């Protein structure tokens, strides 16, 4: 989870000086595609690997769901916290700074375990009404719907962690952790905009938040788009940590498959193949995004 600085107005590294020859610039991708085809051919000519593939591939949906929902939540958290981190209000500043330092400091794995073994049981207590708090039927029903519990489960048996939607069970652990990192990205982006922009906006009678919304943030977010996209890739890879609490994403399914059949090499080959393809697809997206931004800068 590296911090990436927003692009400076006049970068030291000017991509215009780099070769435009597609072969020179994109050979790594051609090599990757060749490797990809080779592995794909290997998978679909081996019955064992096909079996492993079929077992693992159903988890891609969960992996992507966790990634996308966590990303969206972490962006919202990140934006709000970034505004707090540049606030002159000392309470807001200190609260948000504590949050960032704390969640940046705790390993993601630890946070996932805390959510799985502390937060989720507490949630179950609240929903099932075994909590010391009195039950509020309306609120309980709402939470039950939100976390995807079948009402029949509550009426017939006692509620367990696996009755809660696995994606929801884990998304907030990712969202609060990545929110801390995102907030630093946004803060760097906002601070990269000269103070003259805020002064000009305010001198026209805009409030602080109007200036933020219409002038500062559009420029800041544009500057940090590559960093955000980079965090998206990191997040995608980190979803593999959810496997430790039995969320059925691809890493968890691979571990299940590999330990059942004792076929670790086969399982890990399939898993690496899937991750590499997902992340490189996104890297291409980032490259496209950066070239578009570069073009925009020249157009303006």
């Amino acid at each position: 989870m590296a911090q990436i600085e927003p692009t400076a107005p006049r970068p030291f590294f000017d991509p215009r000086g780099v070769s435009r020859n597609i072969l020179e610039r994109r050979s790594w991708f051609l090599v990757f595609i060749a490797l990809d085809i080779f592995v794909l051919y290997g998978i679909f000519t081996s019955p064992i690997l096909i079996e492993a593939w079929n077992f693992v591939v159903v988890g891609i949906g969960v992996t992507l769901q966790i990634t996308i929902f966590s990303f969206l939540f972490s962006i919202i958290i990140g934006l709000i916290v970034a505004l707090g981190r540049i606030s002159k209000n000392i309470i807001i500043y200190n609260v948000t700074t504590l949050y960032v330092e704390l969640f940046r400091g705790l390993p993601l794995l630890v946070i996932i375990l805390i959510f799985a073994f502390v937060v989720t049981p507490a949630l179950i207590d609240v929903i099932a009404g075994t909590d010391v708090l009195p039950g509020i039927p309306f609120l309980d029903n709402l939470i039950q719907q939100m976390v995807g519990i079948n009402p029949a489960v509550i009426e017939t048996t006692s509620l367990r962690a696996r009755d809660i939607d696995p994606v929801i069970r884990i998304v907030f652990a990712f969202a609060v952790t990545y929110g801390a990192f995102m907030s630093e990205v946004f803060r760097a982006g906002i601070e990269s905009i000269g103070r003259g922009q805020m002064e000009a906006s305010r001198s026209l009678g805009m409030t602080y938040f109007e200036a933020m919304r219409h002038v500062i943030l559009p420029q800041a977010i544009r500057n940090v788009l590559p960093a955000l996209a980079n965090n998206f890739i990191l997040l995608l890879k980190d979803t593999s940590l959810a496997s430790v609490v039995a969320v059925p994403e691809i890493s968890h399914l691979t571990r299940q498959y590999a330990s059942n059949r004792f076929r670790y090499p086969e399982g890990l080959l399939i898993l690496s193949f899937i991750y590499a393809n997902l992340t490189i697809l996104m890297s291409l997206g980032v490259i496209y995004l950066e070239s578009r931004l570069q073009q925009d800068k020249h157009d303006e």
Partner: protein
Amino acid sequence: MSELIRTLPPSDKPIIHIKDATKSFGAVKALRNVSLDVHAGEVVVIIGPSGSGKSTLLRCINRLETVNSGEIWVEDVQVNSKNCDINRVREEVGMVFQQFNLFPNLSVMGNLMLAQTVVRKRNRAESEHIARRLLDKVGIPEKADVFPTKLSGGQQQRVAIARALAMNPKIMLFDEPTSALDPEMIKEVLDVMLDLAKEGMTMVVVTHEMGFARAAANKIVFMDHGEKIVETTPADLFDNPQHERLKQFLGKIL
């Protein structure tokens, strides 16, 4: 509405009233007991060596800086009091900066329309109409859909002036509007400012352009080390300087 106000004869009550303004940045005293009155329709030019506090004084008028003590009134509002609604004051006080500060994420039209729609709550058609009229006025109607970074410095500053005028301000503040410009672009900006002055806009201008000061100012203020040293007419100041520090300053720049 604003046209009406401008045609009113200058009243005795100043539109900007600064009394004993004091401001320090750490140990540096930027303003020392500065008092200044500006009446509606007046053009006041502030000159002085760099670091003399003239920009600070200007920025205190719309509270981009806050004074440590003293009073600043714009019309009937005490700007430096905590419970004044500063955004309502700023709507009526346009400001032009040395570094232009156009919004690079918006086209020229976008720059001119943003505050009109967000702050003045005008609809798109109306604010577009006003924006086009002002672009005509500053002489670059053909640049409406261009982005600011594609414009020359002089053009950017004229857009910045138009952006401030789009709010129909009663007062315009200019903070060294030509200091960041190449020499050949200074005139195009000064011409726009001269036109504004002729129309009777109330202006407070911090500048090193003595030609402009002579041609447009009703009143000229010389500041040094945060103090207002001289406040007089341009003719008196340039042709008959009395104060020693003013003489030194004029000797260096003229």
